[in-house]
């Protein structure tokens, strides 16, 4: 038994070393080198090429241009996977509405210092996340990152005050989160559908391309650069992810004893 484990260990180490050597010597293509791959060159050259607008995405940020324009359908399905995971979580935790005695819950929470700091930090987190979402097509960030930041705000409140504070005082219940989440996903689908309904023959293309020269979202609104539909995608994704995570955090913070009582364990 012991010999077998040693043999497995040696084999694993050899395999690891072989993989490492293969990667380092260029087995997976060009590992960090001074040049980048031709595919990357294509995206970098075309994402904001104002001199040749045939393939551009109108976003100076190559990653956002790839996510929502060149590989837009991928990103849509990725959002759908996240949505399904949230639905799965809700299905596992499907219980009747949990009622907690108000007075008992109100006395809980962390100290007054933590509560005061949370009150100050909460709007700051929301503002930061909004700025990340609204600038996602110009600066690092985007819908998913902004949504993740937004979801931290209710998490802070759950820790500092209580779950009850969010549900009763902020009126942000589980069902409302689910509705917001669905609204976000439908908004993404609508943003995709509008150009098709208007006659353009391409899915998830935010700018006029040689094969879809009928309709596209405006690339700028006065001094504001919108990058076509990228701005709207980012905002919709922001809503979707923020509400989805808030919903999951709300479900996870259901008190254990309440749950056990309902499950009759």
């Amino acid at each position, binding site marked *: 038994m012991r010999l077998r484990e040693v043999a497995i260990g040696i084999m694993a180490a050899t395999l690891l070393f072989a993989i490492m050597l293969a990667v380092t010597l260029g087995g997976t293509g060009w590992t960090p080198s001074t040049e*980048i791959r031709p595919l*990357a060159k294509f995206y*970098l050259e075309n994402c904001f090429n104002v001199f040749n607008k045939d393939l551009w995405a109108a976003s100076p940020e*190559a990653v956002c241009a790839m996510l929502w324009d060149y590989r837009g359908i991928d990103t849509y399905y*990725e*959002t759908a996977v996240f949505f399904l995971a949230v639905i799965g979580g809700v299905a596992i935790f499907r219980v009747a509405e949990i009622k907690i005695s108000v007075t008992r819950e109100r006395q809980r929470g962390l100290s007054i210092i933590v509560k005061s700091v949370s009150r100050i930090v909460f709007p700051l987190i929301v503002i930061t996340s909004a700025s990340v979402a609204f600038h996602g097509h*110009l600066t690092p960030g985007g819908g998913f990152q902004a949504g993740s930041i937004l979801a931290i705000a209710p998490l802070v409140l759950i820790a500092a005050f209580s779950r009850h504070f969010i549900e009763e005082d902020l009126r942000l219940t589980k069902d409302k989160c689910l509705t917001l989440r669905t609204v976000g996903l439908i908004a993404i689908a609508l943003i995709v559908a509008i150009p098709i309904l208007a006659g353009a023959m391409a899915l998830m293309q935010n700018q006029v391309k040689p094969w879809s020269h009928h309709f596209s979202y405006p690339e700028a609104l006065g001094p504001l650069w919108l990058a076509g539909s990228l701005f709207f995608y980012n905002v919709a994704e922001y809503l979707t992810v923020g509400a989805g995570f808030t919903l999951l955090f709300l479900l996870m913070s259901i008190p254990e004893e309440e749950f056990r009582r309902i499950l009759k364990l």
Partner: protein
Amino acid sequence: MIIEAILQLYGYAALITVVAISLYGIVRGPSLIKKLIALTILGDTANVLIIFLGFRFGGEIYPPILPTLNPTQETISWFISVAVDPVPQCLVITAIVINMAITMFLAFLIIQVYRLYGTTMVKKIARLKG
């Protein structure tokens, strides 16, 4: 140059070792929680590895974001010559979202398993009947 190559080899060695340890954790971890932790470590390490593949050596290296809204032809060629590869970053964003979704769902499943069976130890769960 030699130091760079050694550092690169060291980076790969570290990442692949972490992958190996996390794989071991997934297979041999006694508790579902430990398996989940190992799974998240595996996912994060894979993401770092992918980002690592997209990096480029050289003098000045910039993120793949054009710093101006009024570029000239020269700005665009300069951008191509200094920006890192955006493709791995894009893949990693997708991977992080899906990883997050899976982690959340598994966490929910594990919590429910604990509530129903009172344990997260795989061997104990396997011995339970009904």
